[in-house]
């Protein structure tokens, strides 16, 4: 077990993390690093005021118009179109003066029955009673999604460009090699929960929206700043909205999508616009998907205390029940042999080990990464704040050497902000974890979303989107263990660890036991 207590203490207020070099996280004050940040073309700042937010809701426009009397048929047709069966029944029940008595009574009874069934269903799966915006906020990997300026972020898997989804439902694509930054807008592109670039392709970007999936084809050579909505493919399936998570297969051939309302995982053949639903009962929906980098497995978590690991050759799955809460986040090691995941309500990271198509079930819960369960193990930050809490998301760099953990903090307590803790990891020959440090931004900025660059040459590059609307990149310079050099065990110890004898004695924080 390894605790946050063994970490080097967080930075004092006003200091921001700049990079890791020589096994040490370097920091600077926010005033001195400002020019450096501004000069970097990929560091962006989206002030909340600059975004034009629209208050567009479907139902609000209805009240603005004068009521005028239509025939019952017209109103029924409109109710059927707008509200489906429930709307129709409500309309008939409400206009009891015009319809025969038996019709209004029977529709009232049917409506009551439907409501009773749906409330029963809702009591089984409480998340179904949420509105779709709340549902996305609940299950998104982004911390506090509904209040976030940057709602989704994705690096291109092969080049240095990335896509940013903003609060105003637009997506911007930044490429340091080109002067144009295309802005993608679409009528159906609302409440973007996730974006992801297609691997082995230069142009395709999948977007998870409130009502559908969009796949944009943005020509990298085009000079247009506003690609038309004809460049987007719309993929939708009845009952499959809102989409909260998407994942491309690493081979670029398939796209999977998940909705907390739909119990099926959709596997899309994007070019043919056809989908295969992989239906499994239980769980009440699918919230988060993660495809292993070797393409052999897909993690699919559900809103209840259950998650599944799909095998992608014949698409069979294994059920993994959790004890306490739902699986909140997960990430795969680069070779696809290890799955790290976190459970809501627990401050623990679990690991699952997969050998050749065979899951070592006994290794479940073998190692636990302990992150300050209750208040007694909190570290004091700057004498007034402390660190710890539930885990919002996990991210592992593509070389498998750094693991970033986004901690939720405590929104009620002022002195416990959200923070990113970074671990050094090693997967071969045995799994090892060492503390690296905390990544902090400027004062008042909370991390909301993070992602590692898929192919950073000099180590790992962590991109963090902050609550202020700023996007920064924190490089971790190190030599990969694949290259012959002195390994982690021979590397110089962290100076801050040396200051504390207790931590020094326990320098190898976690080592997997090979049974």
């Amino acid at each position, binding site marked *: 077990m390894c605790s946050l207590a063994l970490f080097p203490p967080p930075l004092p207020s006003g200091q921001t993390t700049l990079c890791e070099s020589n096994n040490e996280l370097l920091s600077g004050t926010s005033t001195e690093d400002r020019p450096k940040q501004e000069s970097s073309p990929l560091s962006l700042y989206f002030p909340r005021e600059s975004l034009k937010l629209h208050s567009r809701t479907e139902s609000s426009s209805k009240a603005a118009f004068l009521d005028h009397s239509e025939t019952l048929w017209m109103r029924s047709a409109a109710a059927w179109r707008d509200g489906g069966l429930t709307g129709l029944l409500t309309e008939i029940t409400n206009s009891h003066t015009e319809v025969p008595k038996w019709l209004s009574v029977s529709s009232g009874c049917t409506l009551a029955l439907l409501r009773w069934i749906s409330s029963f269903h809702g009591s089984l799966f409480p998340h179904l009673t949420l509105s779709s915006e709340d549902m996305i906020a609940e299950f998104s990997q982004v911390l506090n999604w509904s209040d976030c300026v940057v709602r989704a972020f994705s690096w291109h898997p092969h080049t240095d460009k990335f896509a940013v989804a903003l609060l105003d439902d637009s997506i911007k694509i930044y490429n340091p090699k080109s002067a144009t930054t295309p802005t993608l807008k679409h009528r159906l592109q609302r409440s973007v929960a996730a974006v992801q670039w297609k691997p082995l392709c230069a142009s395709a970007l999948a977007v998870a929206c409130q009502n559908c999936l969009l796949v944009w084809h943005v020509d990298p050579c085009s000079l247009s700043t506003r690609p038309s909505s004809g460049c987007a493919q719309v993929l939708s399936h009845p009952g499959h909205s809102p989409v909260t998570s998407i994942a491309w297969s690493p*081979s670029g051939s398939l796209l999977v999508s998940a909705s907390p309302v739909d119990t099926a995982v959709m*596997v899309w*053949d994007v*070019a*043919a616009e056809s989908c*295969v639903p992989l239906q499994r009962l239980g769980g009440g929906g699918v919230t988060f998907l993660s495809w292993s980098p070797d393409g052999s497995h897909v993690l699919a978590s559900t809103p209840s205390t259950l998650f599944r690991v799909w095998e992608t050759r*014949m698409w069979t799955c294994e059920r993994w029940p959790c004890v306490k809460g739902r699986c909140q986040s997960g990430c795969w090691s680069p070779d696809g042999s290890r799955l790290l995941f976190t459970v809501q309500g627990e401050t623990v990271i679990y690991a699952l080990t997969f050998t050749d198509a065979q899951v070592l079930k006994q290794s479940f819960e073998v190692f636990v990464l302990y992150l300050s369960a209750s208040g007694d193990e909190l570290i004091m930050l700057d004498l007034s704040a402390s660190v710890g809490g539930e885990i919002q998301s996990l991210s592992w760099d593509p070389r498998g050497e750094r693991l970033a953990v986004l901690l939720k903090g405590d929104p009620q307590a002022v002195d416990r902000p959200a923070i990113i803790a970074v671990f050094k990891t090693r997967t071969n020959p045995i799994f090892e974890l060492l503390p690296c440090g905390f990544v902090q931004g400027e004062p008042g900025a909370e991390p909301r979303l993070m992602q590692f660059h898929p192919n950073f040459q000099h180590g790992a590059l962590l991109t963090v989107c902050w609550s202020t609307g700023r996007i920064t990149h924190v490089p971790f310079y190190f030599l990969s263990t694949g290259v012959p050099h002195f390994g982690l065990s021979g590397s110089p110890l962290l100076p801050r660890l040396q200051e504390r004898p207790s931590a020094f004695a326990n320098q190898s924080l976690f080592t997997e036991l090979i049974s």
Partner: protein
Amino acid sequence: RAAASIAWAVLLLPPITAVFIILSRFSFLHPIHTISVIPTIACSKIALLGQLLHPRQFVSSVVHCIMGIIVAWCCAITIGGRYETLGYPCIQSDGSPQMCLNEYQLILLLAGAFVGFSHSLLGVIHNMNYVSFHTVQQYKYLRFKGSLPLVVKCSAIQALYSIRNYIVVYFFLGYIPRAWICKTLNLHLTSSAHPLDSIAGLLDLSLFYHLWISATFLLFTWYITLLLFRIFVTEVYSFPVQSSFTEDAHQCLPKVLLTDKQPMILKFLALQDLALLSQHSPSRRCEVFSLSQPGGHPHNWNAISGECLSLLADLTQRLVAYHDTVATNGRAKSLSTGSERKTSSETSGIPVSPLTAPFTPDLDSPFASPALRRLTAPVEQCSPWHGTVQSPHIMRRAPKLWSTSTGERRLMEDRSLRSNKHCRIQFELNRAVKNFLAKRVLIMYLFNKLPEASSQALFADSQAHIWALEGLSYLVQASFSEDHFGVVQTALPSILSCMLVLQEAVDRHFKLPHASSKPVRSTSSIGDSTYKTLRFALRATLKTAIYRITTTFGDHLNAVQMSAEHRKRLQQFLEYKE
């Protein structure tokens, strides 16, 4: 007399034997013959009509009708009550007992026949005998379970539509079969019960419900059969890559891929297996990369890569030929039917192609223009108008065809026409006939080409090409670390150039009108419409395949021999700009 009878018997023996042989060869219900992995796409309304009126289709319709009647009879027996028998004893007005016609059973039986007939017609229109392969592999039971709700939904909806149509037909024409049945079976019509082909008779909800239930049951059994057949046929079959016994050699993957005599489905299964093995199983990939024991030749790899490359080259050739036809004539020549339409742009006597406009005129190379070549070969001068079949074969060697400037060609062709009067007369005659035909609206309607159908027909068997591309690219990717003998390296230049040429041809094809328009997605039909989007799937797979090779090899590709044009194109891929 005895001798004569024997002689006649002997004389009649050969024709009877012939009839027997013909009948025994005639296996019209053999599923492999009726089901195909390559859809037949009708490029115009007349072709569709031809398919519908084909004798085989007629036989199939009759068989479906009979089966429909049988199932409807079973339904009638099962439902019982008023549907149970066709005749019942009744007493006429004059008091004499006789058998009367029970119209309720008749209407049910005829509904069965009608649903069977419409099912067989819709089968042709929706290409129901086409079997598509799924991109997602699943076990048979799970796939069946997953498709079951769709089958139930489809059969219920289709039955509803069929019954609606049937009721309309019966309302107008119902008296004909009723009278015929009465006459042949010597049944009588009761005067007391009002006939069912009236509004009052057909507004019977319970009758409608029974008709619909029976039709749903009938369609459901057929759809289930179809579904099970599709699932079993498209199941992955694992061919051995190589066998140590010579008698099993014909079952090995390279052999199955190479032979064209087998049914197409076998080749498709082999290609599917190739795509899967290249992706998932390192041990079988190792067999592909292995050398033959005496001699040390990479026979497996040579056979597999050779067949894949020839498939891709074939598609490239087809695309280039099609594009040439379109570019020279301003109209597409359909592959399956020879219907030609006179376009308005031809009134000047010279085919001015509107499609050459998007392509940049290349004035620097006028000698590459086909018009000049045509001048030197006067025999082919009439070809652009009535000999479009042969023109692609001639033009195939002229890749710069579309880059010719339109105005220049018009001038040259004018000159060539004047020099050859014979051709001119023939052409005028042709034009007159076409003008005459074009004025008839029905003929115009029938012969008008369906948009994007020719594009669909071009890519009808592209599932094979998709697998070939996937198989090749995955094998090449794996060869980076697994190919110990350098077997793949020798073929790398040809693979890359083949893919790049195909990429160019596909890109050019998608610039044609209707080629990039998306078909309407139909969800509530059991007929498989995957063939409509195969060209998009091929384009995506092709790009992914090239990217797979370029990302794996990276800058090592600079050491591969290839032409400057291809290198430029490949550089685009290396920089992720495609």
